[in-house]
């Protein structure tokens, strides 16, 4: 999904345009300025037109006769909340797995590993992002899911009193597997951006920490993490945006049903919003299209809200860092 966050560096000085920048403007500058403004405007235009489409086409979806919603509920909110809940659960699983891993990998690459090792590792991680989601879906549905069943069975047997670890679906195609695949898919995004911000930690800060007798882990805690916090949050939000909107892999991995449950191993949990649109779109009955578009609008607004929250969090941590 569209997650547009930039890692802003803390403002270096007060003066916005130092005296050594030439005030003389050439034709090249004018053209370049025009092009960049056009590019920025185009993005906004695309976003606005998607929103307008979702709103105008999906508006009728809020007030369809009850039988259109009968798959999951009896009203629009009854229809959309289980889907929304599944979307969030799958994305949360993905984040819980991917974020620590990604930060760990980024730290290894930037702080621990020698460069002969870190370069190929970074490259391989980037490569994960080039694998199309349909391939992840195939792999996870056919190969990974059955292999996970014994692990799920074990968890169910020993921790079954926790409602999260209920009955295990025999093919392993549950929301936990979908979350795991999403984790693998968002791993390279989070890793790449975290790596970038960690490597920008000023050398002086790090050396000062080490000189004061900090261990390497203490140095990372004192300098790398505070410096990179806003960048890592941006990275996580980008990853989350991808996880929320991922369709194909979820469609191929999840065995969906109509009842939302907190049992992560269930074979009849509701699909995510995006997956539901893909599943219901083709052979649909009357009125369903509007409802599907309306659920798309809900997902759009959710991503929007999350992005705003992230921006706010980034701004706050920057202020903290500056102050």
């Amino acid at each position: 999904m569209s997650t547009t966050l930039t890692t802003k560096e803390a403002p270096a000085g007060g003066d916005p345009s130092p005296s050594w920048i030439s005030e003389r403007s050439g034709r090249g500058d004018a053209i370049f300025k025009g092009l960049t403004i056009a590019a920025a405007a185009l993005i906004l235009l695309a976003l606005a037109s998607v929103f307008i489409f979702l709103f105008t086409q999906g508006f009728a979806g809020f007030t369809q006769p009850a039988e259109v919603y009968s798959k999951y509920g009896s009203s629009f909110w009854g229809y959309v909340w289980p889907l929304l809940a599944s979307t969030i659960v799958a994305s949360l699983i993905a984040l819980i797995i991917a974020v620590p891993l990604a930060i760990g990998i980024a730290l290894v690459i930037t702080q621990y590993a020698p460069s002969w090792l870190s370069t190929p590792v970074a490259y391989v991680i980037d490569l994960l992002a080039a694998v199309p989601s349909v391939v992840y879906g195939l792999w996870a549905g056919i190969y990974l899911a059955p292999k996970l069943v014994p692990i799920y069975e074990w968890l169910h047997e020993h921790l079954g009193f926790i409602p999260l670890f209920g009955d295990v679906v025999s093919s392993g195609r549950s929301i936990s597997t979908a979350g795991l695949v999403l984790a693998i898919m968002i791993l390279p995004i989070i890793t790449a951006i975290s790596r970038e911000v960690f490597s920008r930690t000023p050398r002086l800060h790090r050396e000062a920490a080490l000189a004061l007798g900090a261990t390497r882990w203490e140095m990372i805690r004192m300098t790398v993490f505070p410096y990179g916090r806003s960048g890592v949050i941006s990275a996580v939000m980008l990853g989350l945006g991808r996880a929320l909107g991922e369709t194909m892999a979820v469609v191929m991995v999840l065995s969906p049903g109509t009842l939302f449950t907190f049992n992560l191993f269930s074979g009849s949990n509701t699909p995510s919003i995006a997956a539901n649109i893909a599943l219901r779109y083709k052979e649909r009955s009357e009125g369903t299209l509007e409802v599907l578009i309306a659920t798309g609008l809900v997902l759009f607004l959710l991503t929007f809200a999350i992005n705003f929250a992230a921006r706010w969090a980034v701004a706050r941590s920057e202020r903290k860092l500056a102050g």
Partner: protein
Amino acid sequence: MKRTSFRYVVPGVAALALTLSACGAGNEGSSSNGSGNSDAPSAASGLSGELRGAGATSQEKAQEAWATAIQGLNDGNLTVDYQGIGSTDGRGQFIDGATSFAGSDSYLKDEELESARERCNGNVIEVPAYVSPIAIAFNLPGIDSLNLSPAVIADIFNNKITKWNDPAIVADNQGVELPDADISPVHRSDDSGTTKNFTDYLGKAAPDNWSYEAEDAFPVSGGKSQAAEGTSGVVELITNTENTIGYADESQIGDLGTVSVGVGDTFSAPTADGAAKVVAVSTRVEGRDATDMATDVDRTTTEEGAYPVILLSYLIACENYDDDTEAANVKGYLSYIVSDEGQQAAADAAGSAPLSDEVATEAQGIVENISAG
């Protein structure tokens, strides 16, 4: 990161394009070699231009075979473009006049029929074109075939019978060693005409056990049930997971064990003959034009050997077109499809059941009257 992905995408697209064009060429070659015994109808040759149709995804494979064949019959002058956009959209586009014909897994609803009559300025043609047995397939090591009555099938799919060695299953399968394992029913996760026909069968053949309406979306969830996307997804899930049972196009199920369903006092295995037999004994929908072969499939037939779990897919067209070429093309294409040769081509390509002689002759008679003006 962007750059890496591009580097992989570009050669990938190129390779795909090559493969696809190679496929296309391969298809044309094979169709010109494989000539049927019976001759294609005369209306199917001497055509040119482009014929647009859209609709049911179930027909896609057969439509591909038909389109390639009729292109061959007309020396490449006629191209047929069939888009598998789903039955509902297919009927909608036909009514809007965007396409010349539609493929649909269900016949026109009454209100649709009204609009279709307006679009056609007269009679609407609906002929059965594609009949496919839906197999109920299972994965039980060492067992190839089971006898199940409609009531038992319904109870399995609504999670009431949960063990393979349930007395109700054992009763009809003396001598088969059934495991003491949980049954995991598998259904389609996407909306599909296959599901609609399967649930229609359960509702009509086992009304006491199955209380749901015939629907594109499978109505039951929970228990040990699972779902997968598309026919191939269902087949793959069953193949890879023991103790599962599901429904899918008979031609796609590979080596899986199949259920012989209870018909009257006997059990019938899914066969093309059995499917065609059901279409032949089914009753027409009342109050339709003479050109309309809309049929309510007789799911409760007691005819021996009949296999009532079928998907019946229609071609929808007009009896009159304004344009001469369009009329000739639709007439030619449709008469090829319902001919012996066309039905055989679909059977070869998609594993469908050819229409019985009686039904095919009636359909042929209807499409022969397509005209212009």
